[in-house]
């Protein structure tokens, strides 16, 4: 496509930002990056359902919501978010409407890691230069370009070599007001042999329309381990568009769990590159949606080197008129021999109006590999239902229990106990067990 389609939405956005952004005088890497991304935005357009990758997710309604970013003005601090704070997360960073709130945040006492907001990166500009924007490709993806051009505050977690961070780093993005757009940005660098758990959680204090466009970049050096947990509980009217990329070096292990529970339309693009020999990843996901919600997950697991192992389990539970979309590609590059890749996508439709579109894909260019994928769409298993009923459970309870169990398989993989309990409670409530 060399044809540039004029995009009103983007034009309006750009115009409004240009007013907001003071002209750049310095030539720091960050400023240059933003300027480059802005140039890309101008040559891109919003995807439509005619684009293969957006075939099932119609975001045209986004055009009606050209929200500004939140001003730094009043930041409501609320007590009713206590349940979003985790016991284990000694280190937490809280953002309200895209703005870092030091008063609610607790930096770790452990000085071995650097956790800073992006604006604090100026002091470590070499880090920014080395990593920021190198993984999240803004040339092709308009949302990444928008985020890169407009990122304001974000998180940077750097774990030095051979440091195992015991407590999870909890990054909490709170949306406090409707009609606001936020551009969260997160950078994680785990040096050789380092290990860390990072939780990104999105919650809303309102039920109105808002827009989140987030980008996460994770670098795992040799033998590093990152456990990445992503919980999306946005307002039922919200748009949530997120891109996450991980570069996994030799013998490193990247494990991720992403949960799509909220938002009117959510789209999560996840790219994992197994870039060194013997690298591995475990990529799990659960979308639990109802009403008229749409949850779209696109994953791309790239086996670029020999002896890498990937495991993926993605589940969708759809009630009412909800619409689940899954597109999962596993690529095995030439010479990535002895790849071991397995992917499973399971979908549960609870209502006749619910809909699922799934597209698991294998692209294999090496012959000595073990790859398998599977996808199922169906209902609760009859034999399991009968078994539970024969133990005295009513049909409703049996159904609820099995629905919960279907999602519980993913939740049980959350390694942070208090978060797992929160999520279990949440899923339990959503699957209507009395």
């Amino acid at each position, binding site marked *: 496509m060399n044809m540039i389609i004029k995009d009103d939405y983007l034009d309006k956005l750009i115009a409004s930002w240009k007013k907001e952004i003071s002209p750049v005088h310095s030539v720091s890497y960050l400023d240059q990056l933003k300027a480059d991304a802005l140039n890309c935005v101008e040559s891109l357009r919003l995807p439509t359902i005619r684009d293969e990758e957006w075939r099932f997710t119609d975001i045209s309604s986004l055009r009606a919501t050209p929200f500004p970013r939140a001003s730094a003005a009043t930041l409501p601090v609320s007590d009713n978010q206590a349940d979003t704070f985790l016991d284990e997360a000694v280190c937490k960073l809280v953002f309200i409407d895209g703005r870092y709130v030091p008063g609610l945040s607790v930096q770790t006492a452990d000085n071995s890691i650097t956790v800073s907001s992006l604006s604090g990166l100026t002091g470590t500009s070499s880090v920014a230069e080395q990593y920021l924007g190198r993984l999240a490709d803004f040339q092709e993806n308009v949302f990444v370009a928008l985020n890169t051009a407009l990122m304001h505050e974000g998180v940077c977690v750097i774990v030095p070599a051979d440091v195992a961070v015991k407590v999870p780093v909890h990054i909490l993005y709170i949306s406090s007001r409707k009609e606001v757009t936020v551009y969260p940005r997160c950078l994680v660098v785990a040096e050789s042999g380092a290990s860390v758990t990072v939780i990104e959680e999105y919650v809303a204090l309102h039920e109105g329309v808002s827009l989140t466009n987030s980008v996460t970049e994770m670098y795992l050096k040799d033998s590093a381990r990152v456990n990445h947990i992503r919980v999306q509980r946005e307002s039922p009217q919200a748009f949530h568009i997120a891109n996450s990329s991980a570069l996994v070096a030799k013998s490193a292990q990247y494990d991720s769990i992403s949960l799509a529970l909220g938002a009117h339309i959510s789209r999560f693009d996840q790219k994992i590159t197994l870039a060194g020999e013997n690298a591995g990843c475990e990529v799990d996901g659960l979308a639990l949606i109802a009403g008229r919600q749409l949850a779209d997950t696109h994953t791309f697991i790239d086996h670029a080197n020999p002896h890498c192992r990937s495991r993926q389990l993605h589940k969708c539970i759809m009630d009412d008129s909800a619409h689940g979309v899954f597109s999962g590609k596993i690529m095995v590059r030439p010479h990535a021999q002895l790849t071991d890749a397995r992917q499973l996508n399971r979908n549960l439709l609870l209502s006749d109006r619910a809909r699922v579109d799934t597209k698991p894909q294998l692209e294999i260019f090496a012959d000595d590999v073990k790859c398998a994928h599977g996808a199922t769409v169906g209902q609760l298993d009859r034999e*399991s239902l009968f078994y539970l009923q024969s*133990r*005295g459970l009513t049909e409703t309870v049996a159904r609820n229990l099995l629905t919960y169990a279907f999602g*519980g*398989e993913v939740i049980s993989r959350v390694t942070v106990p208090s978060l797992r309990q929160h999520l279990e409670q949440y899923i339990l409530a959503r699957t209507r067990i009395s």
Partner: protein
Amino acid sequence: MININSKILLEVHDLHATVGGIEILKGVNLTVKSGEIHAIMGLNGSGKSTFSKVLAGHPDYEITRGTLLFDGQDLSALAPEERAQAGIFLAFQYPVEIPGVANDHFLRLAYNTVQGKRGKEELDPLEFDDFVREKMKLLKMNPDFLDRSVNEGFSGGEKKRNEILQMALLEPRLALLDETDSGLDIDALRIVANGINQLSGKDNAMILVTHYQRLLDYIVPDFVHVMEAGRIIRTSGKELAQALETHGYDWIHANDQVAGAQP
């Protein structure tokens, strides 16, 4: 144990049942009183497993003729869970694996649901934990069973023990044990049989569905029935099982001919 004065628990009369349009049960008659232990034996495909599924109310099976009374109440009108609540328990031949549901959660939910329906006291998680651990000792079960998902990744013996544990918790009035001995080594068989014997009493009854006589070495039945082609063709005392073990199922027919020759 046989007691003339015991009340009738189960009355099956001329029971016909189909699965997928194919008739499997073709006129089963059976009466079971409290305190009795019955064994139903027969070759594979004789209809004995179907019989236990029909009693438990599996939705794939349809009763086309005959009556099924439990404690005087028509069973065919009841949903599977209502039968369970009324006191019918089926120990499955192939217990179903339910990933994602923790065993302790499931056991408590089943126990409290049934207790509630029977107007008895429900137990909170702590009370239940003590209660279930006590019951597990009976079956020499490892406490970590409770944290695992229902039957998931269990060995054959573990699954069967889990079934008997559920039976111990739900205190059924009529227990149907479908091929409970299959897949058990001799030690596991002894433990399971011992558990079943301890659960047997004057107020409940049991039907053991089995192919082999093995289980009957440990649980002594009051009646042995032989099922063939969807009917009970022979009923006798425990010695019948021994005779079948020695002579095989064909012996029944040979025996019939001899009996026919000398009226």
